[in-house]
């Protein structure tokens, strides 16, 4: 079953009279349970594609279908609702709310979904436990290492049980050991929970974890094939 389907998608940015095509007629399909890497050099369109699949942006042309729903023509609020219900994000710079503790950061999506306090608490504990941060629940981001912050971000991405988690360069800001830990946790959670991961990277060590590698170059799909890791 397809979790995300991108059909002939182009994204053109306009600056004055200048038009820049970040994506040109891209078509890919992500199956449920995949652990897919989106690779390519800087400027190849990885982040643009992630933003489109993540409903943070809309395509100039083409269709994007997330968990059976065409999201390409949704308005801003509908896209926000789709993100809340179906998509989790992990960003390169962690994107945790600095004044909230690890627990509160993970709790935020659940709070937005209106989950009762008791259920929220149990779910947050379970997620922080799953990423190995059981003992650091009440630390704020500045009291956590980069690797730990990214693990909190992963727990937060999983909180509302999304169909798809999009990670943009999740290890780019981490040292090798922490990068390895983060990838292993993501891979383990992918296997244990079946949630689909799509991550953008150009780090060969990270690409090695992928079950499928989609290579972008100059805004187009240059290669789309099985990765080193098989689910």
């Amino acid at each position, binding site marked *: 079953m397809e979790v995300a389907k991108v059909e002939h998608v182009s994204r053109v940015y306009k600056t004055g009279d200048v038009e820049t095509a970040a994506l040109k007629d891209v078509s890919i399909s992500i199956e449920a349970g995949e652990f897919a890497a989106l690779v390519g050099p800087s400027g190849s369109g990885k982040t643009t594609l992630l933003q489109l699949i*993540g409903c*943070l942006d809309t395509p100039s042309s083409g269709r994007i279908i997330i968990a059976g729903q065409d999201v390409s023509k949704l308005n*801003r*609020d509908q896209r*926000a*609702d*789709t*993100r*809340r*219900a179906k*998509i989790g*994000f992990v*960003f390169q710079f962690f*994107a*945790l*709310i*600095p*004044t*909230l503790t690890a627990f*509160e950061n993970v709790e*935020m*999506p659940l*709070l*937005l979904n*209106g989950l009762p306090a008791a259920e929220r608490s149990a779910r947050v504990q379970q997620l922080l436990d799953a990423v190995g941060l059981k003992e650091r629940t009440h630390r704020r981001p500045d009291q956590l290492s980069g690797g730990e912050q990214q693990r909190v971000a992963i727990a*937060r991405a999983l909180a*509302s049980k999304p169909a798809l988690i999009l990670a943009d360069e999740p290890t780019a800001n981490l040292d090798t050991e922490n990068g390895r830990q983060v990838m292993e946790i993501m891979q383990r959670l992918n296997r244990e929970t079946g949630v689909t991961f799509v991550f953008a990277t150009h780090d060969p060590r990270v690409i090695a974890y992928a079950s499928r590698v989609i290579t972008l170059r100059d805004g187009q799909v240059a290669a789309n094939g099985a990765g080193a890791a098989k689910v």
Partner: protein
Amino acid sequence: MLQIIKLAWRDLNRNRRRSFFSALALGMGLSLLLLMAAVIEYEIRSSMDTSIRLQTGHLQIRAVSYNENRSSLAWEDLVEGPAAIAVQVAALPPVSVATPRLFASGIVASGDTSAAARITGVDPASAANDPYRSGILSGQWLGADDRDGIVIGQPMADKLGLKAGDKPNVLVNTANGDVDSQAFVIRGIYSTRTPGFDNGTIFMSLAKAQAITRAGDHASAIFVLLKDRDQTGAVVAALQTRQFTVLTWDRMNALLSDTEELANSYMILLYLIILAITATVIVNTLVMAVFERTREIGILSALGMRSGRIMAMFFAESAMLALGGIALGLIIGGAMVAYFGSVGYYI
């Protein structure tokens, strides 16, 4: 909605010190405004009350043709049989005191100095005289049947070098246009702490004033004090006849009434200024919060929070801050007003 409030509350708590000081800034502004409003209101009200107690009363019942500026003593300009009318008026439930008074112009002379005086004939026993009676500095207030005593104000006594027991000459205009004079004994010297009034007003018994001015059984006005000045309209309605004019305290104190209106307009202007300051503080806090938290706004948006709800969350924070500020302002302002109300203040 509840969720938005919960989030906003948590955000305010995250930055407790800033939230507190923002609310405090609002609170201080509001409390100072309250204090100022209370002081101005009190000053104007007490000026009005002083004028009512000392000079005008809440109401004066006069003959239709009476002209206050001329202190006319012609009988047709006076109220005839004033004691009986005063008794009738005093019987009205909202009325505290009703007493006849006779006003005449005159001169107090002692040796080679003299001073103009407004001679006020009063019923010495009336409670309406309490402000003068309680202000006696030396000597005593007029006795019930006092036929040759007067009470004068301290500034006049100082000016003329008089003390209680002295016998200055008093020249008085009479009803038939003559001037009569007689030596009076100063029974007492009073002060109401209103120099303008004390300097020119001397008291004698109504009977003596009527006799010396040849006014017969007449008075210039029935001086009426009410239990509550808000009942003025009702009492005026009950008293209105063709025979008399009933003057109300606000008409008799037109200058003070105008000042009160002016002060009220001034207060509205001040309220608007404070409102503008308050709005600026809130907008500033809001803008600072937004600038400081653009990253957070992006994160919340990525997590699926609708932009309207993000905005609502910031507004809820501001609203809570404003409510907190108002509460603080009311508490601090209320405490200051209560404190100065009981202890007083020096100007």
